[in-house]
């Protein structure tokens, strides 16, 4: 059993395929059947945590010997057919148009800014040997990182600084909202407490993007007690955090679940703009765990949702205005956005919108955009079409 969806743009520059075979081996077979015939510079895989990630990593690497395979586990997949769960998405980058080099970053618990500089420098040097700039003039970097490592801010800010002008986007790996273990995949192996940094060069125009659909209300909360290391808020307004969050958001605190967090994120205002800080879960002691860095004394602003379609459409319009027709959007979408759409019964429509615009990717536990680790956004990189010279 299992299906392989249609491959996008067979004559194109990137090819995506999804598989949902019963075992990791079958899923790898399906991906191989679709993409192995193409001359690939790299293969990106987003794997449902229903699969044994280690087995899948081994199986897929064994089949795609010549092309490096990089990936991570997910909290839902964005396939060529739209949103799914329990599947594998694979994106192949053709050698004619892309060059890619990747490095795993291990032991994130002890990650230092200097490590980021070294890795970025190594990748740039390796890329310089691999692809002369004249042929592949556009560059971008991509980060996949353990979604439970709590080190995203440190890693992304160091890498962004080290990469200079190379735009970087990425996503935090998921495990289908179990919040136990998430993995990144590199070289046929899986790693926890780790990230993989990829550096791409391409002949094609690219743009990175980020959008969200929340706006601030006048309702504020102050973090009065927090464990910033563990991203736990114990008190808001000097009251137990979960209880106060529920009260301010107009929710019953007994029913707080990911759907509540999805539709009622809290925002922080920085530099004139607002950014979502997403709640991961309620802890037994009534404190709240977050997907991103928090601190004591932060002022949270309750959020109000706007039209979720409008912001996504705007991304498509703006990108196409800038680089012309888009071959594919590789997207990192917060799992809470998807939950929010499901709760609002907009999931089918959103899924169709993504499908129509050739968005593939996965649902994350956090998104990286330039130096930032953000939540509740749709972030990624758009890959343009080759411009045929008339």
């Amino acid at each position: 059993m299992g299906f392989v969806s249609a491959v996008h743009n067979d004559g194109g520059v990137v090819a995506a395929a999804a598989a949902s075979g019963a075992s990791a081996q079958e899923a790898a077979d399906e991906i191989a059947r679709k993409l192995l015939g193409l001359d690939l510079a790299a293969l990106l895989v987003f794997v449902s945590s229903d699969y044994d990630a280690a087995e899948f990593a081994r199986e897929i690497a064994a089949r795609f010997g010549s092309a490096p395979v990089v990936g991570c586990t997910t909290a839902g997949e964005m396939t060529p057919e739209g949103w799914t769960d329990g599947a594998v998405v694979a994106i192949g980058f053709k050698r004619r148009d892309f060059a890619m080099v990747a490095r795993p970053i291990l032991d994130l618990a002890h990650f230092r800014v200097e490590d980021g500089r070294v890795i970025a420098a190594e990748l740039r040097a390796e890329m310089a040997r691999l692809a002369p700039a004249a042929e592949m003039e556009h560059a971008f970097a991509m980060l996949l990182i353990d979604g439970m490592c709590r080190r995203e801010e440190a890693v992304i800010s160091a890498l962004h600084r080290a990469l200079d002008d190379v735009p970087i986007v990425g996503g935090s790996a998921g495990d289908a909202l179990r919040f136990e273990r998430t993995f990144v995949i590199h070289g046929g192996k899986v790693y926890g407490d780790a990230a993989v940094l990829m550096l791409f060069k391409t002949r094609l125009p690219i743009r990175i993007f980020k959008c969200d659909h929340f706006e601030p209300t006048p309702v504020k909360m102050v973090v009065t007690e927090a464990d910033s290391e563990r991203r736990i808020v114990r008190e808001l307004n000097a009251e137990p955090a979960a209880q106060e969050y529920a009260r301010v958001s107009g929710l019953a605190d007994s029913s707080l679940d990911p759907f509540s967090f999805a539709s009622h994120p809290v925002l922080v205002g920085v530099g004139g703009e607002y950014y979502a800080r997403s709640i991961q879960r309620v802890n037994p002691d009534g404190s709240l765990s977050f997907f991103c860095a928090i601190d004591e004394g932060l002022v949270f602003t309750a959020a109000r949702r706007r039209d979720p379609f409008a912001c996504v459409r705007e991304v498509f319009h703006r990108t196409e205005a800038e680089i012309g027709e888009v071959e594919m959007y590789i997207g990192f979408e917060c799992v809470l956005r998807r939950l929010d759409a499901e709760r609002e019964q907009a999931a089918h429509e959103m899924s169709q919108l993504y499908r129509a615009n050739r968005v593939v990717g996965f649902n994350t536990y956090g998104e990286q955009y330039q130096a930032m680790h953000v939540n509740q956004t749709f972030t990624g990189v758009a890959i343009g079409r080759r411009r045929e010279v008339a």
Partner: protein
Amino acid sequence: MLRVEDDRRELEREIAKLKKINAALMSRVERSFDKEFNAYSLFETAIALDNQVRRRTHEVQQALRSIERANDELLRAKQQAEAASSLKSAVLTSISHDLLQPLNAARLALSALAEIDLEREPKGLVAQADRGLATLEELIRTLLDLSKLDAGVATPDLRDFAIDGVLQSLAGEQARAAAKRGLKLRVARSRAVVRSDPLLLRRIVQNLLANALRYTRRGGVLVGGRARGGRWIVEVWDTGPGIAEERREAIFQEFQRGEAGSAGGEGFGLGLAIVRRLALALDHPIGLSSRVGKGSIFTVSLPIGEASAATAAPAAERAAPIFCAGLGGAKVLLIDNDPAVLAAMEALLTRWGCDVAVAQSGAEALDRIRALGGAPDAVVADLHLDHGERGADAVAAIRRFVQRLVPAIIVTADHSEAASEAAARGGLEVLRKPVRPAELRSLLSYLLG
């Protein structure tokens, strides 16, 4: 009464909460001015950065892109240059090897010739030919060293030593050449300790000195030195024709020579190119100041060494033979795949009174031993025989056959350390091509003694 109490308690609680909120906010505000970063402040910094980036102008981005393109082009040019250089090194190594082989044969033949009682005139010619070959050998060795440095297989052997020893021995060597041309040669004494590779530094100064003597017609050459800017500067002064400004870059190029028709036809115009390459490898900047018609000063800038760590600079040549007796009647088996080398060696050893047998392979050597019915006193074998056979293996086979640890010498044109180490492991002596007869003779008499 009770309600008032409740209200009061409620208000007190509210005040306590507000106090805590206030305290959290104040502490946060204060901390926001601290230097210490936590994860959240990284996030804030990231946003500030992002806004800043957005404000960057299109022009700046374009400038960066063009710099990147330029850098990539430079990188590519550098890679091409490196590729070319490594190819050149490989070619040079193999050419040097092929040159050393016949040179070896020629010098051995000349030595044999010199042993024969000749008239004065032919004797002079033989000596002249040998000097020519010696110059050639020196040049090939320098090229080999350069190619090894270029290829990265050799690194300079840096150590601290007194410069005076190197300079005085050079002066000694060149004294005759200077006197013959009626030039004064003076080397100022110095107590400086420098840090360099003594043999390579020696080559640099030797080339500068030879160059100065070659192009100077009257007057002389002075080698001196002085401390400047924390370094030791070796200076080679001459009263030659001087070098015009526009020629100063060119003379450091290969095959560029001084003014046409100048006296002293030796050399290939490689001297200064070698100086420059060696100096680059050692990171010893070379300087030149010159006045046309007055003379030139070439300088080499050296790091100052630790006087306490200074070692004696090794002599350029191996020590003169010490053991010179006891070769008469010795049975020596020669193994070399090159018939010319075999013939020359045979002639030489025969002149020394040895009883010589020759073979071109290990198998042939065993045949010889069987036919002669006795073990040789010593074996001299070339390292590389035909069909991938190695001299060391041939020696091992002979030793097994005669059941005796026959003294053996391996001769090789392979100047790599690995070759000598491999031979040393087999308990074999190693001589490098071209073989100096005196060296061979002393080694043989030592082994037979």
